């Protein structure tokens, strides 16, 4: 599904990603771990097409298409989804309106007919219930005044509505208490099947108790320095990132 080859990228003129290669197939869950500043979030931004990132080299294909030929919205429509570490607030735009807009963009891209607000409400209500989100979230402005946990739930709600092929979860566990973490992780797990794939970016092993990865990669200074199974995450947790050298 996703093939990253020797990717190099910079943000604000500073090289952050220094040669990453990674292949993600359908049905797989990959976890990318690493200390602050190792390039985890930058990698997710590069893949999603954040305009602040500059590609310095390498290639990325997504279902055989050169990802860099696609605008951010085209990547999204192709099935690439980024759950933000810091979701953006948009005052005055209701969550319901926003979600319907995104859903309809997907439908119209697939050549399907767009849904009207009434039909969409049914879809939305069902998804919101599974995430334990109250009705007020429909009318509230996108992420505006949401707590940290509410924002993260809102990201997973979007994921549930758009059903993307590849979801990149950027530190979806940060700022969550244990109950919220469980709800968010449950939401993600329910959406997982053998046709889609997940990249779970996290600082802590804790999240991986809830979302079980097939592969764990350790990122350090813009490079993957170790890859393995969930065992690797456990070892990492025990020894800390200072001891990365031991893992390599």
């Amino acid at each position, binding site marked *: 599904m996703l093939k990253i080859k020797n990717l190099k990228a910079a943000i604000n003129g500073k090289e952050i990603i220094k040669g990453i290669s990674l292949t993600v197939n359908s049905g797989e869950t990959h976890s990318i771990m690493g200390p602050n500043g190792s390039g985890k979030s930058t990698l997710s931004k590069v893949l*999603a*097409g*954040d*305009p*602040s990132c*500059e*590609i310095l080299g390498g290639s990325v294909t997504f279902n055989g298409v*050169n990802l*860099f*030929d696609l*605008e*951010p*919205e085209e*990547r*999204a*429509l192709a099935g690439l*989804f*980024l759950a*933000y570490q810091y*979701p*953006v607030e*948009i*005052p*005055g*735009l*209701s969550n319901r*309106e*926003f979600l319907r*807009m*995104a859903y309809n*963009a*997907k439908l119209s*891209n697939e050549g399907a007919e767009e849904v009207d607000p009434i039909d969409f409400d049914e879809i939305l209500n069902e998804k919101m219930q599974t995430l334990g989100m109250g009705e007020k979230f429909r009318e509230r*402005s996108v992420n505006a005044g949401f707590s940290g946990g509410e924002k993260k739930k809102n990201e997973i709600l*979007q994921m549930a509505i*758009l059903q993307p092929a590849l979801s990149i979860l950027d530190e979806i566990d940060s700022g969550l208490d244990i109950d919220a973490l469980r709800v968010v992780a449950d939401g993600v797990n329910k959406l997982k099947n053998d046709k889609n794939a997940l990249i779970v970016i996290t600082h802590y092993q804790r999240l991986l108790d809830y979302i079980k990865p097939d592969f764990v990669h350790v990122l350090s200074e813009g490079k993957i320095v170790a890859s393995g199974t969930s065992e690797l995450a456990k070892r990492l947790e025990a020894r800390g990132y200072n001891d990365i050298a031991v893992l390599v």
Partner: protein
Amino acid sequence: MKSKAEKQNGLNDVIEDSREYKYGFVTDIETETIPKGLSENVVREISKRKEEPDFILNFRLKAYRRFTEMDEPKWANLKIPPIDFSDISYYSAPKTKAKLGSIDDVAPEILETFDKLGIPLMEQKRLSNVAVDAVFDSVSVATTHKEKLLAAGVIFCSISEAIRDYPELVKKYLGSVVPIGDNFYSALNSAVFSDGTFVYVPPDTHCPMELSTYFRINNSESGQFERTLIICDKNSHVSYLEGCTAPQFDTRQLHAAIVELVALENAEIKYSTVQNWYPGDPETGKGGIHNFVVKRGTCLGDNSKISWTQIETGSAITWKYPSCILKGDNSVGEFYSVALTTGHQQADTGSKMIHIGKNTKSLIISKGISADVSSNTYRGLVRVSPTAKGARNYTQCDSLLLGDKCGAHTFPYIETATGTAQVEHEASTSKISDDQLFYLQQRGISRETAMNAIVNGFCKDVFNHLPMEFSVEAERLLMLKLENSVG
């Protein structure tokens, strides 16, 4: 792979300067235009042509004398090129002599013009639930649904007709809210006002339909000085909307109007404006309308309410402060505004709420959006007089910047003379960030739709107060104006 520059189409790179103004056409019609220049004789000539009674002529002459003693105000945060008041024609009317108020005699070119503007006047095509008064340059050319309204007791006609047919009402209220000598432009308007709309809603009447006036400036050398007077009697309600467009000319045109509203006991007036005068060339700033307007309403009776909603998208310069004088106890004044400036446009707009009666309440919601090299200023005054015990005001001013060459300014003035008043002011300035755009794009939403959604969200509180028929239109207009502000 695309180059970095192509990929990184941040907002600054994509603010383009070609914006089409689709109302810029000129109607080719013979006009009766009096020679340029302003003098007592010109004022007399206007009055004579309009066959006015003496009380109006005297009103005009008094105003003209005041005007000659006054100077142009300079306090606005605007760069106004010098206006040569002797280089303007103060009266221009289509030559085909239409009988006042008779739609059948209106020249076909004019009907066609309004058709093209989406304001059909002929019986079979007109909007069924909205009555329209169409003003072309200096005269009102047609008023629809007059008979139906009259059956409900509502008078809806041009101010010229009102002067002829309802002189007592005009005498009583004309100049009662905006006195002749209130300011330079009100004196000018009072001296040379050409036409405009008159509305009277009798007691205990809910006006059965939306009323609206559509103003069209066609002549390149004439100014438009219209005068609107709306009186809503006890326990009555009226909702009124004005729209404006003008052709595309290289020269600046002056539009100096006065709108006076009077709400008696328990009455409610809702006044909405969608202003789309020609804004001038977006690249050079050449041409466009100077929109210098005095709009004021008095809540004369207890428990009355006046609500202003304005969507200001046009004009080279907009300078206006729709205001409420809250005299009646428990009266309410509201002001909802979206002012969009693009290209070289300048706007200095806001509201004044003057609390005089007890427990009066006012609300100001102002949204300024600036793009390109435009400048957008909110200026507001909330004054609480010693008599206004328990008065309350809430003001919220938000500015949204698109790009980094435009400007947004806020000048709120608050004067309270009583300890029991509660006055709140909140202000914010934000930029549409690349982050917000990217977030929506990451959900598959196109950049343009994303921009529209963000701007729309910003304006939501105001759009919600427009009459249903017009809120969609206003949204569309705003999107049209911003079309090229996003790549």
